[in-house]
């Protein structure tokens, strides 16, 4: 279990993290979302020992993450970085060795990962000769080459084309199947929604929502029902008890049901108007959940500021 516990961090007067806590179970893919400047990178850098937390700690299997544990973490920094003039194969083997593999195992692993990520023919080339997309693959290979126990990746998908996204996603899912907890940050929420078992939304230095996507959805208050009734007259649902019409356009109606309102009565009313081509609860997308979560804190902090 990888635990982030009450991380606080201030740069001079700027409180970047105000108690960030979340847990990632082995084999879990944890998507870390938040607006720009929310503190995602700082959180990850603290885990990697590149920044020091003012309070709180990161634990792996109950023990604080120290240098020995970090050697077993695969890390991809937000600012990509490798030796531009070093050959791809040698570079991967070097990082494998720094992470504790002996020379022979490092060489084998470097070859293996270059091959898996489609870089087999580029092993002998200097990194700077590769396209940006391929450099990104090398960066990922550098994080994976030591077969780490934990993966922490800062915006691993940014700058990848759809094919690249798919192959990276596949590589990460495979790590999860091995039992490795994977934490990655991303702005691409559809991707997070598709890949992640659990999501944490960071806003203003706090985790404002976390859990599985399903949990987040059920926690969302305003669930909406979409009913498409092409033959219905305008305002067909307006009179139904406990129902609020959110929008209506040529029979495509979005409704919000009050507590205790039976959706089957709505269906009956819809059928009474004629054909029903669509009747379904609309699941809020992660984008909507994210927007809600972030807006909530904004108004909350707003009030705090007024109170203070």
């Amino acid at each position, binding site marked *: *279990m990888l635990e982030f516990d009450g991380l606080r961090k201030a*740069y001079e007067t700027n409180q970047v993290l105000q108690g960030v806590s979340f847990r990632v179970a*082995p084999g879990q893919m944890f998507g870390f979302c938040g607006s720009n400047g929310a503190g995602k990178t700082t959180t990850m850098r603290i885990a*990697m*020992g*590149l*920044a*020091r937390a003012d309070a709180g700690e990161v634990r792996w*299997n109950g023990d604080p993450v120290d*240098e*020995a544990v*970090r*050697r*077993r*973490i695969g*890390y991809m*920094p937000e*600012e*990509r*970085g*490798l*030796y*531009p*003039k*070093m050959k791809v194969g040698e570079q991967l083997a*070097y*990082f494998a*060795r*720094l*992470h*504790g*593999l*002996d020379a*022979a*195992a490092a060489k084998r692993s470097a070859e293996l990962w270059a091959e898996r990520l489609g870089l087999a023919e580029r092993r002998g080339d200097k990194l700077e000769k590769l396209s940006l997309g391929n450099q990104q693959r090398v960066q990922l290979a*550098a994080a994976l080459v*030591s*077969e*780490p*126990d*934990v993966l922490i990746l800062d915006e691993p998908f940014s700058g990848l084309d759809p094919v690249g996204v798919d192959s990276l996603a596949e590589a990460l899912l495979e790590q999860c199947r*091995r*039992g*490795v907890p994977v934490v990655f940050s991303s702005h691409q929420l559809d991707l997070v929604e598709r890949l992640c078992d659990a999501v944490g939304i960071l806003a203003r230095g706090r985790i404002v929502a976390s859990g599985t996507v399903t949990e987040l959805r059920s926690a969302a208050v305003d669930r909406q029902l979409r009913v498409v009734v092409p033959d219905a007259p305008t305002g067909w649902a307006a009179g139904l008890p406990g129902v609020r019409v959110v929008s209506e356009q040529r029979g495509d109606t979005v409704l919000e049901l009050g507590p205790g309102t039976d959706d089957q009565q709505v269906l009956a009313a819809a059928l009474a108007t004629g054909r029903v081509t669509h009747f379904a609860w609309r699941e809020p997308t992660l984008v909507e959940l994210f927007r809600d979560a972030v807006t909530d804190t904004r108004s909350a902090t707003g009030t705090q500021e007024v109170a203070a």
Partner: protein
Amino acid sequence: MTAPARPDVTPRTPTQLVRLVAGREISTRIRDKGFLIGSAVLIALILGMLVFQVAIASGTDTTRIGVVGGSPALGEALEAQGDALDTEVTVTGYDDEASARSAVEDGDVDGALLSPSGAQPELLVESGGGQTETLVQGAVQGLSISEQLARAGVQLDAPTTVDVVALDPDADADLEAAVVALVAVFVLYTLLFLFGQFVAQGVVEEKSSRVVELLLATMKPWQLLAGKILGLGLLGLVQMLVIAVIGVVGALAFDVVDLPGRLIGTVLSVVAWFVLGYAFYASVFGAAASLVSRQEDLGSVLGPVSILLVVGFFFAVPSAQDPTGTLATVASFVPGVSPLVMPVRMAAGAAQWWEVVAAVVLMLVAISVIIRIGGRIYAGALLRTGGRTKLRDALTAERA
């Protein structure tokens, strides 16, 4: 739950990490074109100096003189004159004027002396007489004077000779050793600059490419810096030794120096001072370089710290001329300057043993201080990318 333990994964000790970093530095640098060309130029320069020395040293020439009908006394007189004029004389006898004439024309001899004991001796030369003329003139006149005196009945005693007393018998050797030391210090200065520069470039490369974040996730800043300095230092030392061996072997083979023992001693002391100087300057250059994030900005931080090295080199030359002077004596104790001045004074025999010990101790103290402060600056500035980090910020930063 723990992920499956791998048998081929072992925890890394600091020594192992430092060795890994050093190994990477060596294997990368040894294949670097700039490094290879630089090394080749330096070695070519040393060989060039040797050839130049050999060319100058072979300046003692010989004067070949042909004689028709000479006497043993004439041969002796010619050789005596040759000694006075600092030239070796070879005398070849010819049977007649014609064969002597053709020898001069063919360049077999520099001049041919005809009827030396006659009333009117004649010297045949190709064109101008020059040194040959002076030599033959002196010999013939001397011979004729002693013959006239003998005919007049004057009995000559053996002429009085002068005893030579050398006040400083080692002076020539001291000068020679100082010159050798100066050449060696020049190499030392070049290599200090070169390898200090390599350390600095390496530090900035890791910062500008941001690879430093990945590295620091596996090791501490001091391990990274130590590995870099040790790896490049080893390479520098090997290069210093290669040049030293070429220089010494070449000098001995071409007989450029008179005292091989002193030459080797001087070269060894310069190699030892290189180790001290490198430890000092590599730490300074490495720490200074960590303050900037781009190669273009390197000049602005290396400029001020290079001054000490340049000053040291400018003190080395007057120290060879006046190794006991105040300037040389003081400079040979100043840490950072001492590696460039003390070897020269030592070579010239102007430094007492305790002076050398004192200079080494001062240097070691300075190195330990530099490593401590430099390491702190490096650790504080390493993760601050973008722009130039202020020295004070770096010193107080630790890991923010």
